[in-house]
């Protein structure tokens, strides 16, 4: 039986040399990476733009809400709202101030400033 000559086996058609193929593959990879990066940059850019506009809208919304809040809690509006419910509030008189002294209170007082603090409790006449 004759021995089969493996070295003489031939492939039909054009065989691209390995270095050239490597270069082509590398270029293809680079091109794909470039395209992918470009697309990615574009999508990130779009996301940034969306976030930018959201930020502007949120800032404006915050500003509007702060304005409304300031209007609602202005002294005039507060007084009007209290009056609507038949409530009238006045600041306490000197005799209605009760000074609190104590260990805890002293520590707390020293933390902030030297001025004395007063709890504002209104005493009814029957308790005096």
């Amino acid at each position: 039986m004759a021995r089969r000559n493996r070295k003489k086996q031939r492939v039909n058609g054009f065989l691209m040399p390995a270095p050239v193929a490597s270069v082509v593959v590398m270029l293809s990879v680079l091109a794909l990476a470039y395209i992918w990066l470009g697309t990615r940059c574009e999508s990130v850019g779009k996301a940034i733009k969306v976030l930018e506009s959201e930020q502007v809208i949120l800032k404006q919304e915050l500003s509007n809400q702060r304005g409304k809040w300031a209007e609602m809690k202005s002294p005039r509006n507060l007084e009007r709202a209290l009056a609507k419910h038949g409530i009238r509030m006045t600041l306490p008189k000197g005799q209605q101030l009760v000074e609190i002294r104590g260990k805890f209170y002293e520590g707390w007082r020293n933390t902030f400033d030297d001025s004395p603090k007063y709890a504002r409790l209104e005493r009814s006449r029957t308790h005096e």
Partner: protein
Amino acid sequence: MNDRSLIRRVVLSGAVLVLALIGLGGRLAFLHLSGHAEVHASVKKTRHIKRELTVRRGNICDRGGSNNLLALDMAVKDVCADPMKIVQENKVVEVASVLAERLDLPTDTVAVKISDPKRRFAYIRRYLPREHADELASLELPGVFLENSLIRFYPQQDMLCHVLGFVNREGVGSAGIEQRLNRYLKGSPGYMESEVNALRQEVYLQRGRHIPALPGADVTLTIDQHIQFAVENAVDEIMAEHSPKGAWAIVEKVKTGEILAMASRPSFNLNKFNKSDENARMNRCIGFVYEPGSTFKAITIAASLNEGTVTRDTVFNCEHGTWYYGGKRLRDFHAYGDLTVADGLKKSSNILAAKVALTLGDKRLHEYLESFGIGRKSGIGLPGEEYGILHPVRRWSKISSTRIAMGHGVAVTSLQVLNALCAIANNGVLMKPYIIERITGEDGTVLSQAHPEALGRPINSRTAATMRHLLYRVTEAGGTGKRARVPDFEVAGKTGTAEKPSNGGYSGTAHVASFVGFLPASNPEIGIIVVVDEPQPLHTGGRVAAPYFSKIAEQTVRYLGTQPSKTKFADRNLSGGRVSLASRY
């Protein structure tokens, strides 16, 4: 079909395709590589955008900080239209009626704006709140679109209107703090250069120059909105009760010069400033110059005490109400005989004040008035502040000092008078009044921080202590200012009732009534002035201004938690019994 025919067709199709591609390629190469600058420029111009980025104006808040906003920018929308598009779509009537109904505008006005086929832009309504704008946008009216805009908003409306001022439609501060600090508040608009795609959307990757907008700095005032509210209520009550031409009041911290409240009437709504008149816009606290009347006696007597030309117990003959000097008559409201300086101040004797001034001499009196800040701006930093009128000594006549001593022949602003009284309260140290506490950048950097600043010391502490007691006696029984008393507190002050100049003389019917004072009298913390221009029918400072001084003072000390002094004048005998009959005048 045989093979040759097939091959021919394929070759022909391929040739056509190749030719087409060559043509397109050639055109592309021509467009890109040719030197048609105008083509390039046209394309570039179409795609290139330059945009100024709008900037938020800084906030203004009271001494409580950003929680108590007094002025801020709010985002609103401008309703705009493309008349050409609306006309082309033949929707003028429909769009006009909907817009008119939603925006509460006359239909014909809207129709006129949107019916010009040559125009591509028209404002229908500016500064529409966003909620309403969103409703309008949901209707998707043809040719109608919304643009973002900012509007200055004042949550407290007319409160503190003269101090805050306003911003005109161009965004420029035009009065008050808005004008004074415009360069800080306005910020710096940003700038952006970029390119857009076929849909006119910005391509982020093509963004060139981008300078973000720098928001305006925030301003913190020394004003306390709660005290301000009390003062505003008080001046409103004065306007209702006495029907004056104007009424105003200031609250100042004696030891620092901080202005806690400043209110003036008539006033105006800051959010509708363009509907107010010039008279309402005037800040009378610093812009109204008037003859102060008897409140000035406190300054005259303080100067004389400081110079030692009189003591509190020096006795003057008050001529039983009528005194001729320099050929002119001077009268007291009530007739008095002999009065000590202390009693003369308590009873507000014109003749006594005039005689005290004569002991001082013109030059020294003028020097003292200047050192108390009369005749010059206080430096509070608000636009519209007046100097007042204090003529140089060389222009004084023989009787000038006798009239200036009782607050005639000299004109002041109420802030000058208050500050002078606060100097007496502050051991003789004249503080510079200030209303701007701090300016803070957006990142929290403090750009400017105000500190109490002493302008001088017109009188020494001993004179100041004596004056505090003398002024305290004014609010005691028998004094002209007893209606200024505050429960639990000792109040020191001086009433003023000045006839207004008229036709070269003085009007018998038009007066300026005022009360200026401080409390607690022995250890002052708060100085207050209340001035009423032409009150009716009552016209004296003691009856018109003093009760409102009391009202403002009571609420202020309660709010601030100020405690009455433990050492009271009432418990001390300060008269000393040193009545000097030898020094009778």
